[in-house]
């Protein structure tokens, strides 16, 4: 149950003692086609897991960079079915695990069952829902599990010990560890050492699961955190797309170059 591919992916990485590089870009940013090309180039450049954002226009957990990307995507008319088209297309040639990240209202309006069915159909490995925390997510997580999709729990520095135990108990293979109090893309507020200390405390609750660290990870901070099971980079990539568009450059190649750089830093 839950995602077989994601489990296998992590097992392989463990064997190779490799840290998973997990990327986040927004479906439809800057447009449907280019965002697919970006996903492909990300996959080719060595990312291990790909998060793809389904943009919502009242995001309460995102920082400026991701908001900009989401704004572009929505302005360009991205729809839920476009997201699945993109994933479906991607999956024709690539096997990299795909995780959808979105807000609950997007799932609700599409219909939770429909959403999960589409995920299964397009071979999505997992779902992150920013504003569907535990225990509110129990029913939906169950639904994901029943469809071999990982529902990825988030834990934060504010999460209490008691909650941590319960969340991890209910979690699937992958857990998202929020590095600090921040929306996505803020500057790291704590030293990597501190973050890793807290991270390890969390991981020790159930070392059999995989824990990825996200929020605030940049070219500068990524290598210091490489002992984690995986590291998520999102704002850095969204910013790269924004910069590329502004300077008339190709976001596809720029993002690819960035992936290579990041991947190198954690090898």
């Amino acid at each position: 149950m839950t995602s077989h591919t994601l489990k296998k992916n992590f097992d392989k990485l463990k064997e190779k003692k490799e840290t998973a590089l997990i990327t986040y870009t927004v479906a439809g940013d800057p447009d449907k086609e280019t965002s697919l090309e970006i996903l492909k180039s990300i996959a080719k450049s060595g990312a291990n897991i790909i998060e793809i954002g389904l943009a919502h226009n009242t995001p309460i957990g995102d920082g400026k960079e991701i908001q900009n990307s989401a704004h572009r995507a929505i302005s360009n008319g991205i729809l839920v079915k476009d997201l699945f088209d993109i994933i479906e297309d991607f999956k024709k040639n690539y096997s990299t695990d795909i995780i959808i990240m979105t807000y609950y209202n997007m799932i609700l309006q599409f219909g939770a069952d429909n959403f999960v069915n589409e995920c299964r159909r397009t071979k999505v490995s997992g779902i992150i829902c920013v504003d569907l925390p535990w225990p509110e997510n129990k029913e939906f997580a169950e639904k994901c599990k029943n469809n071999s999709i990982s529902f990825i729990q988030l834990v934060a520095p504010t999460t209490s010990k008691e909650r941590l135990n319960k969340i991890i108990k209910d979690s699937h293979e992958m857990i998202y560890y929020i590095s600090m109090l921040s929306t996505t893309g803020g500057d790291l507020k704590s030293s990597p050492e501190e973050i890793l200390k807290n991270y390890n405390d969390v991981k020790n609750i159930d070392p059999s699961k995989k824990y990825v660290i996200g929020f605030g990870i940049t070219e500068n901070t990524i290598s210091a955190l490489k002992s984690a099971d995986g590291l998520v980079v999102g704002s850095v990539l969204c910013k790269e797309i924004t910069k590329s568009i502004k300077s008339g450059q190709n976001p596809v190649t720029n993002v690819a170059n960035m992936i290579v750089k990041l991947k190198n830093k954690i090898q």
Partner: protein
Amino acid sequence: MIEIKKGIPLIDQHDENGFYAGKFGGSYVPETLKKPIEDLTIAFEKLRYDESFLKERDYYFKNFIGTPTPFIKLENLTKHLGGANIWCKLVSKATGGAHKVYNATVHSLLAKRLGKKYIVGDTGAGYAGKMLSMAAAKFNLKCKIFMGTKDISRQAINCFSMKSFGAEIVPVDSGSKTLVDAVSECIRYWVANCDTTHMAIGSTVGPNIFIKICAWSTAQISKELKSQLISYFGSVPKKLKLLNCVGGGSSAAGFFNEFIDDENIELIGIEAGGPENGKHAAPLTNNCKIGVLHGAAQYVLQNSEGQIEETESIAAGLDYPGVSPLHCFLKEAGRARYTSASDEEALEAFKLVSRLEGFVSPSLEPSHAFAEAIKIAPKLSKDTILVVNSCGESSKDHNIIAEKLGYKL
């Protein structure tokens, strides 16, 4: 059929997960906020029964907010319309000029109790922000207010007040540049700063605890009204209708609160119908679908995809795509009736009420409620009592109204 549990406060009608009628409300928040919200919930549930806290609250309500606000008969308007008796609860007389001061004061007192030195809040009409800045200045809290850039320019007076109280106004230029974006940005800020900072949401929206705190604060209005009704009429009149505009719904929730159990009393919420032939901001009136906005499930203007839709209203305080789960609940239970007034109707109501009833000078939000009163009063019997909550004062809207009504200033 949804039933309202008798004898239980409106804010306690939710289930253990914070849902009213099993489907409205909840706390759809990023994990980071779970702990601060839990802390706040525990603190509030304790403090709301704490004698010393209640004493403090009552002290500031009385001495700073200036409660009770007047309850007056609008003789001229009644005569002019020739039907029901029209009364007005002049909540705009509360310090700062609107009901938003209750919630702001309570949040500031809570922030102090929680040991927070910073407080943040959202604002649309600027009142929530003005009041929060005002209370923050008094209680030595550093204050940041998130406000859409469209609202900053149309509600400049309230911005002036915020600045003079030493608050920082953070302009929000995304989306519709109005309240909805301000709330989002405010929540985002809190996500990043919840360790040091208390957040006050400006209406009965957001995660359940904020709805509860807000409605608990504004409930003061109906407590006063009840005792004023009894003192004027000997008892609560049988043929009574309460009218209140509904943006997020904090004013209406506070106005209805004490009367929920008394089914003789009609509760009428008036949403923003927007410009004729334009957009609106009336999710209840227009049977919008349930969605999740700002952490709570509610009727909300959205497209089929789940994107929140842009709204339009001449009243900045009503210009919001969602509505309190409390009102969704009251609607679903058939306890309150919801309707809307257009921009044009609200302006006409403003004009008529101001001309006939000098002491009442409603801002554009309560002008919506007056519009409904003006519509229904002539058809009602003379022993019917309509009470309109005039919950905001017109000066913040002077430029908009003057322009629309052609007053040269």
